[in-house]
């Protein structure tokens, strides 16, 4: 109801302005900045609705966003933790709308549940940049833009890498899935399976869910190795599970080629593990944090009239060849 009132009052204003002899050409509308309050030296609040801080990857996104936002004078970043709960995350987005943040960044925990909240933000005139996960609809229309990687493609890359480089002569492979029935878990599982199809001599002999966490991964992979002692390659849907799987392989005295996903930095991250030779590879899942802050600058400081609706950040394969160089960064 409020929106129609706003519509009415702005319509009135437009009529009054026109009456005052100020003819506003409708063509000028297209060139309006996306945010009217944009200014080179303005103070802006960016609200980031994070899906779940408990996941190390997401903490890594928070760190990168915080660092990127610090670089910009006038940007204040607020991060809300949805704690892996669509209800909590929805209410946090609503809080940001109440606060009238200047830009909403969001990594929705799940797509469909967060769609109405994103629509409310857009209706309130707040540009919405979706990071890493999408809500339902089209970027540029239902929300401002999407920045992120493609889970299915990244896992498919890992599958192709397995088919051509790790097991060219075929053999047994296994998969550790994330939290069953969560979007990224399903996409990564399906992507990897699609990728290994390139080599019909590879059989996937076991798939187990380990809910993204290392301890469950260790347990699950130990059991897999008991049942299938000839597993040559393990695809773990994230770095944490790959770390757990390594412990299981060592415990069983097996030399299994392990592939992680995310390519987290730092001493406990996947890049380091590949550099040390513990894993065969990990495929980075880029955060898109820098790109998101860049886009926010365009909208808020440069008064952009439009932005690229989809920015796909490509995965990098971290293998024995490049891991050492990247780990040193």
């Amino acid at each position: 109801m409020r929106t129609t009132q706003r519509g009415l009052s702005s319509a009135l204003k437009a009529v009054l302005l026109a009456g005052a002899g100020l003819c506003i050409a409708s063509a000028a509308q297209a060139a309006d900045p996306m945010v009217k309050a944009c200014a080179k030296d303005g103070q802006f609040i960016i609200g980031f609705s994070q899906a779940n801080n408990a996941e190390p990857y997401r903490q890594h996104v928070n760190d990168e966003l915080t660092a990127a936002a610090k670089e910009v004078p006038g940007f204040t970043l607020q991060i809300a933790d949805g704690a892996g709960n669509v209800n909590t995350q929805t209410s946090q987005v609503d809080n940001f709308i109440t606060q009238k943040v200047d830009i909403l960044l969001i990594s929705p925990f799940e797509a469909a549940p967060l769609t109405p909240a994103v629509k409310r933000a857009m209706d309130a005139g707040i540009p919405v940049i979706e990071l890493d996960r999408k809500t339902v609809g089209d970027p540029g229309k239902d929300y401002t833009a999407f920045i992120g990687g493609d889970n299915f493609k990244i896992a498919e890359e890992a599958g192709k890498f397995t088919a051509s480089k790790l097991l060219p002569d075929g053999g047994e492979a296994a998969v550790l899935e994330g939290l069953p029935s969560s979007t990224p878990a399903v996409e990564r599982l399906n992507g990897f399976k699609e990728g290994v199809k390139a080599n019909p001599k590879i059989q996937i002999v076991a798939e187990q869910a380990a809910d993204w966490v290392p301890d469950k991964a260790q347990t699950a992979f130990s059991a897999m190795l008991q049942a299938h002692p000839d597993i040559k390659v393990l695809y773990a849907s994230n770095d944490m599970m790959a770390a757990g799987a390594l412990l299981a392989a060592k415990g069983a005295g097996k030399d299994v080629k392990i592939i992680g996903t995310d390519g987290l930095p730092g001493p406990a991250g996947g890049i380091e593990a590949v550099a040390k030779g513990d894993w065969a590879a990990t495929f980075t899942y880029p955060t898109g944090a820098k790109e998101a802050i860049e886009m926010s600058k365009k909208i808020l400081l440069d008064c952009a009239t439009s932005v690229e609706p989809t920015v796909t950040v490509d995965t990098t394969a971290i293998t024995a060849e490049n891991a050492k160089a990247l780990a040193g960064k």
Partner: protein
Amino acid sequence: MSDQKIEGTANPAVPGRRTATAAPKHRVDPLAIIVRFQSLIGLVLVAIGGVIFSPRRHGEILFLNPDNIANIVRAVSETGIIAIGMTFVIITAGIDLSVGAVLGLSAVVTATMMISGGFGLIATILAVLVMGTVFGIVQGTISTRFRLEPFIVTLAGLQAARGLALVVSGNQYINISYGDGPGLAPPVFAVLGERLFDNTVPVATIVFIIFAAIATLVLNTTRFGRYVYAVGGNERAARISGVPVSMVKISVYAITGFASALAGIVHAGQFNFGSANDGMGYELTAIAAVVIGGTSLFGGAGSMVGTVAGTIMLGALANILQLNNITPAMQLLATAAIIVLAAVLQSLVRRREGLGR
């Protein structure tokens, strides 16, 4: 809150607070009054704090913005519905850990029935409510029949419900799309995510309020309500005085099962979605709300209004902390402090009443 005598044991020390144990004192204990209304007092304090510490924009206090209030009461609706059921169970000195998992199972079954099952809205809702109720009846029956701790039985129930949810959903999440025809849900179902009365009151909250009102009536005015207090206060005495103890116990688990299923339906309608992971951890939020509301885990005493106030208070607290950009860590620590405070107050009163626990 009526102050009726039940089995001649209304507690004169605490006006309106019904307990099943006679209090030896006849003077009014101010501490007991505080405990009686602790969650309401807490809610008022949080609201005052919210106003004081609320960020302002163009002079408007954001905390009191109607959209913000609507957001607070919407966000607590699901856990609130569950906490209402949980209040019955905890008054009988029981516990139900399966509620969050049953919410997830119900959301999944709701989505599956309408999307791939081709069932109508009414049939789906009835089936899910019956399923939740039966789930509770089974847990209550196992617990009473085999004299097992409800903690253990419902812990198994939690695992069973999550497992069933994964089986039903085939390890996938199920989106609910609306329209007319097979594989689509009737658009009216999406109303659960909307607001009524000129876009002010969230429908989820309306469900919560209606359910709370019915539950309050049942607990405070019916014979069954008196039985619930009697069983929790002193099971043996209740049995001797002719209260159908097993029946009452099975019934309260049926109520939590029903409440969890109702919350699951609200969840599916609010978020157009069903996933086996929905409602994870809700059991603990609900127990927290009940305890803050002044219901004792030892059973025999408690109030529904307290639970509702406790639920909204936790939501308001989370809201004001986020409006001020205070970290989630502080939110958890603040909640922890409030739970401990509520429990300590209760234990002091019990000691004064000479209950020794």
